[in-house]
């Protein structure tokens, strides 16, 4: 998978990567992936889909069980000079060392040991970026709220002026004000220093709003870029031999024949259209009655609409003109039409 322009050296290149924890099944398998510098990449996927594993490998926290990660065109491993303090990750849970706020933010600069850097002014600047006053620096680690701790943790990363900032659910457990500050500070770092951002989040509104590319992960595999819907099995055949799954509201979701009953179905947002509810579906396409629950304005242009079909949530992309013409608004009941050829299967 290529993310970003092809004409420049990618900041990351992954070749035949596989990672296992102990003797378990692989938590992550990526054949090939490139990320161009100065992009904002979103990672989406359910818990356990491999997002955190991918982020930690990209952060060079640990080595993958197999395969290679190239940073700026060169193979790199944890503790390499080429990646130390250039690539940094903000984990989900704010974790501060048992030191003052100042010492927490200054730690990375101190271990890097660049005598020319004015550490005090860097710390003040980093704290200001996350909306904390300079006098905050004297606070001990235990006198902070959860949101403040996460902001201090981000400030510690920003003080390094990193080339890559990886964030794992950065706003999952913080208050709204801290979340705003964290998002703004991350985007600012990219605007000012060209920092490449890779963000894993469940907040699709935010990701689709700010990311250049959104990558889906499912069961440790990349599903490619763009808006997608993943529907898990198990699938069953009805009396007519039609494959499908019974939904919680009693309706049935029909799909083309899956390779195995447990396979997960993927359908691109582009392969879904709104159908006329009166006309029966043509051969090779499926109708799914549902209701529009959410609409998101995408970063480039266009709109993503979420359509609930029973307990399954489909993402449909459409232009603003199409949204106006089809009277697409949240709450409206619609019929989704999926082309037979639009389905892909993951086993």
């Amino acid at each position, binding site marked *: 998978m290529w993310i970003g322009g092809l004409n420049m050296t990618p900041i990351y290149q992954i070749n035949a990567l596989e990672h296992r924890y102990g003797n378990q099944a692989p938590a992550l398998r990526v054949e090939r992936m490139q990320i161009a510098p100065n992009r904002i990449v979103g990672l989406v996927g359910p818990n356990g889909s491999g997002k955190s594993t991918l982020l930690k490998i990209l952060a060079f926290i640990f080595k993958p069980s197999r395969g290679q990660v190239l940073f700026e065109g060169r193979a790199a491993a944890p503790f390499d000079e080429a990646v130390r303090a250039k690539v940094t990750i903000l984990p989900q*849970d704010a*974790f501060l060392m048992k030191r003052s706020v100042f010492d927490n933010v200054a730690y990375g600069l101190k271990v890097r040991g660049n005598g020319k850097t004015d550490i005090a002014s860097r710390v003040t600047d980093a704290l200001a970026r996350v909306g904390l006053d300079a006098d905050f620096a004297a606070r001990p680690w235990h006198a902070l709220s959860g949101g403040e701790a996460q902001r201090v943790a981000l400030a510690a990363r920003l003080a390094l002026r990193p080339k890559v900032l990886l964030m794992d659910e950065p706003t999952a457990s913080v208050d709204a004000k801290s979340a705003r500050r964290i998002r703004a500070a991350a985007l600012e770092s990219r605007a000012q220093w060209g920092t490449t951002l890779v963000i894993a989040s469940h907040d699709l509104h935010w990701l689709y709003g700010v990311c250049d590319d959104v990558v889906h992960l499912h069961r440790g595999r990349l599903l490619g870029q763009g808006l997608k819907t993943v529907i898990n099995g198990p699938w069953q055949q009805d009396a007519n031999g039609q494959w499908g799954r019974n939904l919680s509201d009693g309706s049935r979701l029909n799909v083309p024949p899956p390779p195995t009953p447990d396979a997960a179905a993927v359908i691109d947002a582009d392969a879904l259209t709104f159908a006329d509810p009166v006309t029966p579906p043509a051969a090779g396409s499926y109708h799914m009655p549902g209701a529009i629950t959410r609409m998101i304005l995408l970063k480039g242009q266009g709109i993503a609409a979420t359509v609930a079909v029973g307990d399954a949530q489909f993402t449909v992309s459409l232009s603003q003109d199409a949204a106006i013409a089809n009277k697409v608004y949240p709450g409206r009941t619609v019929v989704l039409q999926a082309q037979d050829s639009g389905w892909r299967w993951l086993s």
Partner: protein
Amino acid sequence: MAPNGLKGLKITAANRWLALMAKHEMDFILSGILQAFQLLISGNAEAYSAVMATLQVSTGSMAISLILGVPAGFLLGYFEFPFKRSLRTVVDTLLALPTVLIGLLVYAFVSKRGLLGEFGMLFTLTGIAVGQAMLALPIVIALTATAVESIDRHLRVVLISLGANRRQLLLSSLWEARFGILAAAVTAYGRVLTEVGISMMVGGNIKWHTRTITTAIALETNKGQFALGIALGLILLFLAFVVNFGVSRLRRKA
């Protein structure tokens, strides 16, 4: 009536008990405490000799046990290796090592016939310090290992992500466990300070030489010299209070 009679009986019994206390025990305990304060204020040479001996041996034994125990505890807590759990169990078992057994072992090794007999450590403060170091070592190792194990698992990710190299990762992890390690040291110090078996057996309780606070109290009590015993006991209590106050402060921070 029965209840009244019982009441009367109770009062009589209590009065008689109080009277007994006043006549015998209370007398010399109270006067012992008064004398003890007099001894402490006037700077009794015998009492201060014992205090100095105690401080010397405990400092020596703590130095040995910390130099050996903190690195060993860090290795035990930080790294994964085969038979780690078995080793932990052995160390935890040694926490319950009786002081008289250590006294016996050290005595056997440092007496003239023993392996280390030529160093002449029997009935010296050095001998006591070695024995007390054996007492403190398992405490320092076990509690340091626990402190290092309880470092948040996120710390590693944070340190690497901020650019720490392998050496900085190790040192910063140790620094993060500092309150727990200090608490381990203070706990071991409290144990060393108050032990009597090793000091008595290896030191021999020699006046002006190897007589520590605890052995002095044991001897003075046998002699019926309660005043000096109580005076030394108060000093020991005070030291133990300082030590435990330190531990509770550190526990709260860790």
